[in-house]
């Protein structure tokens, strides 16, 4: 029988599934495009347009363009396998620290990973974390040094580093340039030679793992799967094993790099499914797809419900935008199974939503999209993690909002912790350790990746890294350190709730749960900030920070004594009236807290973790990481 490389008929022995692990800007997209070109799935003339096109969308839509899986036919060019026909599936991994789980599912769909490192930069923390993830998943790793065409490239140095990390020889690191194409065809050959072929049971009931699920306005949800066992056919009705939901299959196909309908996909293959469902929650990453008429008995392992780790209240600055905010969240939810929200009312901020996110970056992406795509102006309250509180009577509550924190009766509190990895030039090790210790971190280990680069591993309370940790890390290391972290259970801690009282009234938006040793600092700093942010009122306004009924800090905003223009301004009454109208407009943008008028800006500035007022977003932001 002649070799066929058609979907649904390809011998699993000829298939190689791989992903590329890389830090942002190390050249993954460029390399991927070069692969498309060399394997002939796009011709060079299309290439440029295609490339630019995608850049635009990525720029425009940022992180939302997530995984793709491209099917690339490849005939080995050199070595003893020359002439051998294979099918490569290149699976993209989503990009950053908040989506560790999604990355792990992409990795689980592969047998191998290309570890791509910029030969002029060396490996970064997030890449390292994903590399560890790949090694835990038993993937075969092919280390490559990219951008070797750069004069600043130091392939020897970084080959040592990589070899040390993976446990291979420096000469095992391939050298490529996505830009010039050098080494790329050799890399493709090596993928065929080194990576294991997928193994599965062709005659067993279908089990396929969802590694990505995206919502498209025109076509509904598009689900990307990797078939482990059996064979999905275009006419099948599919079933989601976590929920039992059954869907008609409207279309099945592979991406190469345009979507191509196919009749079937079998063991080891990667493809997309369209069922017409409108919400990614009905087709969740990590879930197992089977066939309704002949269902599998057990699902593939590893499925997890995405659980929010960080909560924040989102409020429209203009209260009348509340319905718009709800619509916008409803829309985003279609494409984001990890986004949780429910209505919430704040005495200070009015109607809004308590939102749960995978992490700070996720929060920031959502917030930015809401503002940009729906034209909303939002206030987000200080992000907090989820606490498990055990009360004196043994009952237990989960606190996702400081205002729900019980007063008294608390026996134990547990806070989530993360395992954090920091890579830093060794000059800054002391400074980084000082930072981590100040954040209640416990050092788990330290390794020299090379003579001048150190990997520090810490366990840290998650609450401590969502508060300007990343900014601090960057500023202490002149921007050289990189950070990665993943949730790692919980620990008991001595925590207290600090309330901020304005003119005797607690302002719920400013309440925070903090470690008891830091309560005083928090209270003092927020009270001092508010004193400068809230304009003087006609009466004196005390600002207090309190734990329960105990006042731990106090500031006073003195009463305003003069608010009149006492100048001779002759006849220009028009100007005076316009000024008055402007002042009245400004007053409308004030939020009333009891009798105190608080400008929106005060909330925004007081809640932002960075000290520079007006800076957007919540300071502790891990930059966009590997894609």
């Amino acid at each position, binding site marked *: 029988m002649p070799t066929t490389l058609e979907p649904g008929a390809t011998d699993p022995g000829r298939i190689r599934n791989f992903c590329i692990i890389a830090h942002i800007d190390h050249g993954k997209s460029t390399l991927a495009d070069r692969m498309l070109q060399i394997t002939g799935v796009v011709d060079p003339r299309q290439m440029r347009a295609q490339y630019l096109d995608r850049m635009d969308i990525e720029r425009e839509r940022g992180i939302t363009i997530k995984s793709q899986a491209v099917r690339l036919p490849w005939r080995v060019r050199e070595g003893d396998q020359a002439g051998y026909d294979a099918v490569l599936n290149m699976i993209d991994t989503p990009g950053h620290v908040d989506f560790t789980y999604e990355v792990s599912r992409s990795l689980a769909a592969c047998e191998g990973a290309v570890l791509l490192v910029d030969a002029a930069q060396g490996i970064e923390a997030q890449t390292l974390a994903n590399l560890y993830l790949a090694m835990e998943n038993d993937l075969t790793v092919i280390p490559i040094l990219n951008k070797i065409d750069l004069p600043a490239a130091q392939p020897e140095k970084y080959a040592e580093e990589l070899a040390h990390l993976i446990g291979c020889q420096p000469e095992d690191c391939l050298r490529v340039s996505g830009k010039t194409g050098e080494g790329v065809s050799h890399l493709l050959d090596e993928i065929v030679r080194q990576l294991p072929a997928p193994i599965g049971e062709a005659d067993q009931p279908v089990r396929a793992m969802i590694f990505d699920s995206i919502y498209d306005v025109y076509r509904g949800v598009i689900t990307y799967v990797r078939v482990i066992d059996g064979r999905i056919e275009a006419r099948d009705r599919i079933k989601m094993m976590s929920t039992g939901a059954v869907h008609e299959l409207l279309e099945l196909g592979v991406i190469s790099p345009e979507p191509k309908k196919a009749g079937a996909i079998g063991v080891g293959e990667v493809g997309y499914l369209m069922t017409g469902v409108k919400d990614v929650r009905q087709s969740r990453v990590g879930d197992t797809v089977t066939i309704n008429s002949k269902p599998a008995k057990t699902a593939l392992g590893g499925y997890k419900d995405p659980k929010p780790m960080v909560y924040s209240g989102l409020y429209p600055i203009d209260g009348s935008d509340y319905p718009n905010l709800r619509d916008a969240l409803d829309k985003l939810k279609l494409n984001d199974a990890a986004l949780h929200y429910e209505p919430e009312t704040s005495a200070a901020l009015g109607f809004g939503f308590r939102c749960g996110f995978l992490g700070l970056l996720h929060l920031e992406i959502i917030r930015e999209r809401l503002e940009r795509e729906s034209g909303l102006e939002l206030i987000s309250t200080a992000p907090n993690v989820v606490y498990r509180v055990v009360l004196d009577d043994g009952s237990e509550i989960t606190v996702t909002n400081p205002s729900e924190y019980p007063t008294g009766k608390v026996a134990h509190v547990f806070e989530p912790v993360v395992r954090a990895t920091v890579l830093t030039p060794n000059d800054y090790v002391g400074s980084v350790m000082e930072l981590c210790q100040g954040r209640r971190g416990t050092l788990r280990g330290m390794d020299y990746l090379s003579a001048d680069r150190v990997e520090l591993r810490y366990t840290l309370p998650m609450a401590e890294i969502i508060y300007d940790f990343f900014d601090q890390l960057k500023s202490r290391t002149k921007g050289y350190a990189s950070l990665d972290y993943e949730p790692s259970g919980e620990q008991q801690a001595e925590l207290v709730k600090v309330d901020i009282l304005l003119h005797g009234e607690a302002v719920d938006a400013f309440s925070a749960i903090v470690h008891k040793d830091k309560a005083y600092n928090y209270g003092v700093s927020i009270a001092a900030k508010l004193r400068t942010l809230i304009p003087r009122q*006609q*009466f004196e306004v005390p600002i207090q920070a309190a734990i329960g009924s105990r006042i731990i800090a106090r500031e006073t905003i*003195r009463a*305003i*004594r*003069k*608010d*009149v*223009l*006492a*100048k*001779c301004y*002759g*006849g*220009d*009454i*028009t*100007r*005076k*009236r*316009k000024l*008055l*109208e402007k*002042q*009245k407009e400004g*007053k409308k943008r004030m939020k009333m807290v009891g009798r105190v008028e608080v400008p929106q800006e005060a909330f925004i500035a007081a809640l932002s973790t960075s000290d520079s007022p007006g800076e957007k977003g919540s300071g502790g932001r891990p930059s966009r990481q590997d894609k």
Partner: protein
Amino acid sequence: MPSTLPDGDPVPVDGSLPSGALASVGARGFGIYVHVPFCASRCGYCDFNTYTASELGGGGAQDSYADTVLAEVALAARVLDAVARPVDTVFFGGGTPTLLPPDDLGRILEAVNKAFGLAPDVEVTTEANPESVTPASLRRLRSAGFNRISLGMQSVAPHVLALLDRRHTPGRAAAAAIEARAAGFDHVNLDLIYGTPGESGQDFADSLGAAVAAGVDHVSAYSLIVEDGTRFAARVRRGEIPAPDDDVAADRYLAADEALSAAGFAWYEVSNWARSPTAACRHNLLYWRGGDWWGFGPGAHSHIGGVRWWNVKHPSAYAGRLAAGGTPAHAREVLAEADRRVEDVMLRLRLAEGLALESLAPSGLVAAADAVGSGLLSVAEYERGRAVLTLRGRLLADAVVRALLP
């Protein structure tokens, strides 16, 4: 640097007004303002529309200024022909009007008289800088028909006068006031500025004392405002001088009210005190009461029957417009009913006579009751059906206005 003008609607080239505006001209009084946009030098804090001779490229503009204004007077006479009525008040402001020869000022006044007639009890004021007048010039002004003079004293503290770039010596303003009375002026005012950085409480007390001792029947006291675009603002921005402090200004205001009250003055407007009701500046009152007036000169503002307009700012643009036979108006706005109500509250509340509670909207009435409760409006006046600021209320007048308006 002179401040900028508001935006507005275009004005017909003949300066004509919508017919509605002419219906009740003068119902709340009819005044004339004459702007004289010249100063010997510019004080660092000042953003009035005024220019030095060197800025204007020589004294030519000053020499021909009176004639230029006469052209606008003629235009006003045409526009108001059907409704013309005698003028209640005339006010020459600046700038420094007394930089022009008294005869020039007299000629303008005479033209106004010819065009509209002056009421028998007309009040005719000129502003003057203390160093710009002499006993002789004051006598000539008096005989030209001026009966009130307002002198920019600002302070008697030498370091304050220096920081304000004033050209006169500490004693000159009081001396000029005495000379004015000797020349036969019925009413004399001294302007004070308080809250200048570096001015002590005693400095200001001395200034108040000197003003009272000069025997004037009117004092204006203004808190120093740092106006955008002025040299003073730039110095504050560069940190060379501290910004004036609002709490200090409040203290000074209280001190002014106390000292002036003790000397027999009473406030009739937030920044103005008079020794008797007849000493109050009627031209000023006309502004606050929403009266009609025509403002002559570059950058001058006018208000006739609910139409506000303002002339082009620069003296040469102004002269050019008139030479071409058209209006020098830059733009205007026709006040909507709602605007008029806003202005009414905004302006009248500054006066000691206050405003009738019935002129407030329901929400304003609630706010007025609140303001009485927090001591910003007088209880006694409230019971009489009027909203009148208390002493503390005067210091927070803008806040009260905002509260009373919907």
